[in-house]
């Protein structure tokens, strides 16, 4: 499936990525090549096959609903780019 530059810009926005204008043609062409390769999947009929989400069809293991984590906020925030009073700082969202 071939994409055009507008499609790729839309996908980039969904993924919160920016593509520089000089690069857009190459990015589009490379992603289109990948999708063409992927389209080989359509060569076989799989209508009767059940999708496989896990190699052993395992289901999620459950644990008792108990608090096991200790509060490590200060330690974990040491590697954050910007914090204040235990909160992560981001640019202003509401004026």
């Amino acid at each position: 499936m071939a994409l055009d530059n507008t499609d790729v810009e839309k996908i980039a926005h969904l993924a919160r990525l920016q593509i520089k204008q000089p690069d857009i043609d190459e990015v589009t062409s490379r992603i289109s090549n990948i999708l063409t390769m992927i389209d080989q999947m359509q060569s076989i009929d799989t209508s009767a096959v059940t999708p496989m989400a896990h190699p052993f069809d395992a289901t999620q293991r459950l644990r008792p609903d108990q608090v096991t984590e200790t509060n490590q906020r200060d330690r974990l925030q040491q590697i954050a780019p910007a914090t204040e009073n235990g909160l992560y700082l981001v640019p202003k969202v509401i004026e």
Partner: protein
Amino acid sequence: MLSKTVAELSAALDRKDVSSVELTQAYLDRIEKLNPDLNAYITVCKEQALKQAADADKQRAAGNGTPFTGIPIAHKDIFCTRDVLTTCGSRMLHNFVSPYDASVVERLQQAGAVTLGKTNMDEFAMGSSNETSYYGPVRNPWDSSRVPGGSSGGSAAAVAADLCAIATGTDTGGSIRQPASFCGITGLKPTYGRVSRFGMIAFASSLDQAGPLSKSAEDAALMMNAIAGLDSRDSTSLDHPAEDFTAHLQQSLKGLRIGLPRDHFTADLNPAVQTILQDAIKVLESLGASVTEVDLPHNHLSVPAYYVVAPAEASANLSRYDGVRFGHRAENPANLEDLYKRSRSEGFGDEVKRRIMVGTYALSAGYYDAYYKKAQKIRRLIKQDFDEAFKSVDVILGPTSPHTAFKLGEKNADPVTMYLEDIYTIAVNLAGIPGMSLPAGMLQGLPIGMQLVGPAFSEARLLNVAHQFQLNTDWHQRRPEVK
């Protein structure tokens, strides 16, 4: 001394032929000398390693040793290591000093291993040549103009060049086996869920699996003993009975049934590689194994299905890198969206961005059935191919890679060319079964590996076959002359 296996070094430490501190210092000296050219390590933990080595010497002296006590090892930089830089080969994590240890790291530390450092890798494990690393490509110790394979290229090069005794790696589509093949060492991708993924930076969660890159099958078995087993911190970790992976190494191969996949031995495979594999098969036959052909009719669809499943899962996993909580953050963001977009665009390299976009597209509204669901259906067909084959054979033997290590830059023109490098390894990840690569011969001065694949939980059998092969050949003992 530095070229010895873990088993040999462990015996030497026991006999007090050498101390762990001396051994660690010798590896550190060799790293200092050779790493500037090889670029196998991103971070070297000199002080920490010498301290761990001193502790290990005391433990051994007190009679509390395990086979790993005092053994200098390296971790792929995808494993979180407490208070040590963990980059995952990415600019995104150039400043990420992990606040905790991965389970694999913790278990090897508890076994007494000494961590020499963190090895280079393709960015977020996305690559087959180690060329997507933000920290520069790794050179193949056999020929510095060639790639070591990827994504665990730094670990493979470090083991091959004797810059560590053994290393950890991860394998999502071949990332342990292919570099093991290119660097002339042994590598094992265990059954999905057998080794904890906790603290292993996620790429494609339904495929990722950690395993050893080693100088022998016996060493791989020793590392499996240390790292395998249920971990409550990984919800996909399997509750499978513990086993001693070294227990069956000495078992005879009499009666072993080997399957050769018809579709692997075609014109696409380098004829010289075919000859090497035929010679290896003769060795196994002489040890009592029998050989038949098997069919894996959907193998050709493994690469297309993988390039939906892996990017889709990666696009979700890598959404956590937002410039807010850790990792790279763009300067002076205009607003929240600008913060996200610029942090991610500056932090990720081209290949990672491409895969995030392919995954985002495959999961976007209206395309789910055509891509992700279709890929999951093909995944089941691939799994069924293996189930069918394992009704008549114990292990499947074939090439790990279509050829020996290629030149740096040779396969960068188009991503799809690079993706097809993993044509023999990817199906194993989709099926969740174990696979390993071990040295099977040399071609124009470069090593070439053979792949052994078995049913789920057959690691001990694969290691048995590999060990018996290594007792009767010396390909795994060949070492590059690194200057």
